[in-house]
C-alpha cells in the first residue's frame, strides 16, 4: 500500500528526521513474461505505463530503462509547456497534454510544480508578425488561449526585454499563451514512476535492450542485459535512440538524432516571471524556482549520440539573449549540457503502430517533447492497449511519410521548442 503524501505525512516524517519515508518505487528483477513492455524510462515511457495500468487495466507490464529513470531527455530539457501549435492535429495533441498537466499534481499525489506563468513568443520581422498573428487566430479557433501583443504590451508583460527599435532584431510584437508555463521535469518522471509502481508496474532500471525477438511479423520478446523477457507488446519510447531500437527489429524510421543544448546560470533573485521564446534569433529563457536562468540553445546540424554539442551554438544563443536582455550581461553561466533529440522531417512526433504486430513507436518529439509528456503517455497507452490509435494521435502515424500527409509544423508555426 502506498502512503499518501500530505502535510501530515510531512510532519510525521519530520519527527523522524526524514529517515523513514516509504520507498517511492520498488527495484524488481524482471519477470519471465509481461503483457507489455515499455522500452525507455523517461517521462513519456513512465506516463505510458501509468495510463496502461490506470485506464486500460494492464497491470502485468514493465518499463525497462538502460540507465536510471528520468536520466535522459526528461532531465535535460528546459521544462517549457505550451500548446500554441498551428495545425489542428498538433493543437489537439498538445492541448490534450496541457489539460492533463492542469490536474496532474493532484492526480499523481506528487507535486510536479506545474506553474502557468505564461509563454510569450516574440516577433522580430514582418514575416514573424504575420505568422504569429495567423497562429493566434488558428489557436483561438481550436479553443486554445492566445493573444497577440504589441511591442508596448510585450514590454509591459516582461519589462526587462529590450524593445528599443535600434537593436539588430527589434521586437515588433509577440504572442502570449497564459495557460502555458513550466513544470519540474524530474518530478514528472518520479510522480509517474511512483504512480505506476503502486499499480503493480515493474520499473526495471539499468536494463538495456539488446535485441527484439520476432516470430515472422509479430513480436515475441526482448533481449536485455538482464536476460530475455517474453512479451507480445513492446512500446518503444527511446527518444534519441529510437533508430537504434528500430534497427534491432529491422525497421527504418524517418529520424535523425542530433545534440540539443541547454544551460543554466548562477541563481539570482526573481527577475523574469514568465517564459520568453524568440524563434528568429533562437533564444529562450525562463527562471527556475532556484533562481537560475534556464536557457535553451539550438541543435547541431549533424547526427551525433554524444550528448555534447558545439560551442558556437551556445555562443549564438547567448549573443541573442544579451541583445534582448542587456540586464543579463554580467550573469555567469553555471552548467551546460546536451541531450540527443530525434527529429522527424516534419518536426512532428510519431505515435504509431508499425509493420510488425505488437511493436509500437512513440518517437520523433525532436526538440519539444517534454510539454507533451502526459498526453503522449495517455495516447500511446491507448494505442498499445487497443492496437489502434486514439483519434488525437491518428494523424501522427508512421504511414504519413508514405502517404505524404505530413503534419508540417516546422516552418509553418514558427515554433522554437
Amino acid at each position, binding site marked *: 500500500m502506498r502512503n499518501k503524501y500530505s502535510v501530515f505525512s510531512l510532519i510525521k516524517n519530520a519527527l523522524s528526521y526524514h529517515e523513514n519515508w516509504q520507498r517511492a518505487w520498488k527495484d524488481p528483477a524482471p519477470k519471465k513474461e509481461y503483457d507489455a513492455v515499455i522500452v525507455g524510462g523517461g517521462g513519456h515511457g513512465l506516463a505510458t505505463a501509468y495510463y496502461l495500468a490506470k485506464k486500460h487495466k494492464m497491470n502485468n507490464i514493465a518499463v525497462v530503462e538502460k540507465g536510471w529513470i528520468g536520466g535522459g531527455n526528461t532531465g535535460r530539457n528546459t521544462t517549457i509547456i505550451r500548446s500554441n501549435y498551428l495545425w489542428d492535429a498538433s493543437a489537439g495533441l498538445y492541448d490534450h497534454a496541457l489539460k492533463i498537466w492542469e490536474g496532474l499534481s493532484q492526480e499523481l499525489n506528487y507535486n510536479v510544480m506545474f506553474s502557468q506563468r505564461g509563454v510569450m513568443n516574440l516577433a522580430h520581422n514582418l514575416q514573424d508578425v504575420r505568422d504569429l498573428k495567423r497562429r493566434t487566430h488558428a489557436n483561438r479557433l481550436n479553443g486554445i488561449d492566445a493573444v497577440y501583443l504589441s511591442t508596448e504590451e510585450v514590454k509591459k508583460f516582461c519589462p526587462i526585454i529590450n524593445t528599443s527599435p535600434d537593436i539588430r532584431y527589434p521586437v515588433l510584437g509577440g504572442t502570449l499563451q497564459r495557460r502555458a508555463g513550466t513544470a519540474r521535469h524530474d518530478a514528472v518522471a518520479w510522480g509517474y514512476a511512483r504512480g505506476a509502481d503502486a499499480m503493480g508496474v515493474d520499473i526495471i532500471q539499468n536494463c538495456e535492450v539488446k535485441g527484439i525477438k520476432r516470430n515472422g511479423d509479430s513480436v515475441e520478446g526482448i533481449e536485455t542485459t538482464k536476460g530475455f523477457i517474453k512479451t507480445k507488446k513492446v512500446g518503444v519510447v527511446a527518444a534519441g*535512440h529510437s*533508430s537504434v531500437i528500430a534497427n534491432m527489429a529491422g525497421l527504418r524510421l524517418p529520424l535523425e*538524432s542530433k545534440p540539443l543544448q541547454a544551460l543554466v546560470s548562477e541563481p539570482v533573485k526573481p527577475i523574469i516571471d514568465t517564459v520568453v521564446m524568440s524563434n528568429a534569433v533562437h533564444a529562450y529563457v525562463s527562471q527556475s524556482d532556484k533562481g537560475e536562468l534556464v536557457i535553451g540553445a539550438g541543435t547541431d546540424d549533424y*547526427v551525433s*549520440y554524444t550528448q*555534447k554539442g558545439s*560551442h*558556437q551554438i551556445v555562443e549564438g544563443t547567448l549573443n541573442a539573449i544579451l541583445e534582448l536582455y542587456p540586464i543579463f550581461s554580467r550573469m555567469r553561466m553555471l552548467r551546460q549540457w546536451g541531450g540527443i533529440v530525434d527529429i522527424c522531417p516534419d518536426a512532428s512526433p510519431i505515435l504509431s503502430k508499425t509493420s510488425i504486430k505488437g511493436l509500437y513507436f512513440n518517437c520523433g518529439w525532436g526538440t519539444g517533447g517534454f510539454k507533451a509528456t502526459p498526453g503522449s503517455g495517455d495516447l500511446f497507452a491507448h494505442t498499445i492497449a487497443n492496437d489502434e490509435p486514439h483519434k488525437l494521435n491518428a494523424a501522427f502515424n508512421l504511414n504519413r511519410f*508514405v502517404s505524404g500527409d505530413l503534419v508540417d509544423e516546422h516552418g509553418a508555426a514558427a515554433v522554437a521548442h
Partner: protein
Amino acid sequence: MFLINCPYCGERDQQEFKAGGEAHIERPKQPTELSDDEWAEYLFMRKNIKGVQFERWNHSHGCRKWFNMIRDTSNDEIKAIYKMGEKPPSQ
C-alpha cells in the same frame, strides 16, 4: 565540436561546415516508376546509425565544395574523408 580536414582547404574548424546528412543515397533513376513506399524510403527513411556512419558535408564558409566523411556518431571521431564520386576508403 571538432576539426574537419577539408580535402580542398585542409584542416578547419567545424563551424565553417554544414552537415548534409547521410551519404550514398542514390537518386532514383526512374522517378516516374517509383511507388509511394519507395519514395518514402528515398526521401525520409534514414539509417541514423549510432556508430560508424557515412555522411556528406559542405565547406559552406570556405570553398563551398561538397565531400564525404566517415564518422563515428557515438564519439564524433572522424575516420576518413573522401571526395564526391570517390569510393569510400576501406577502414
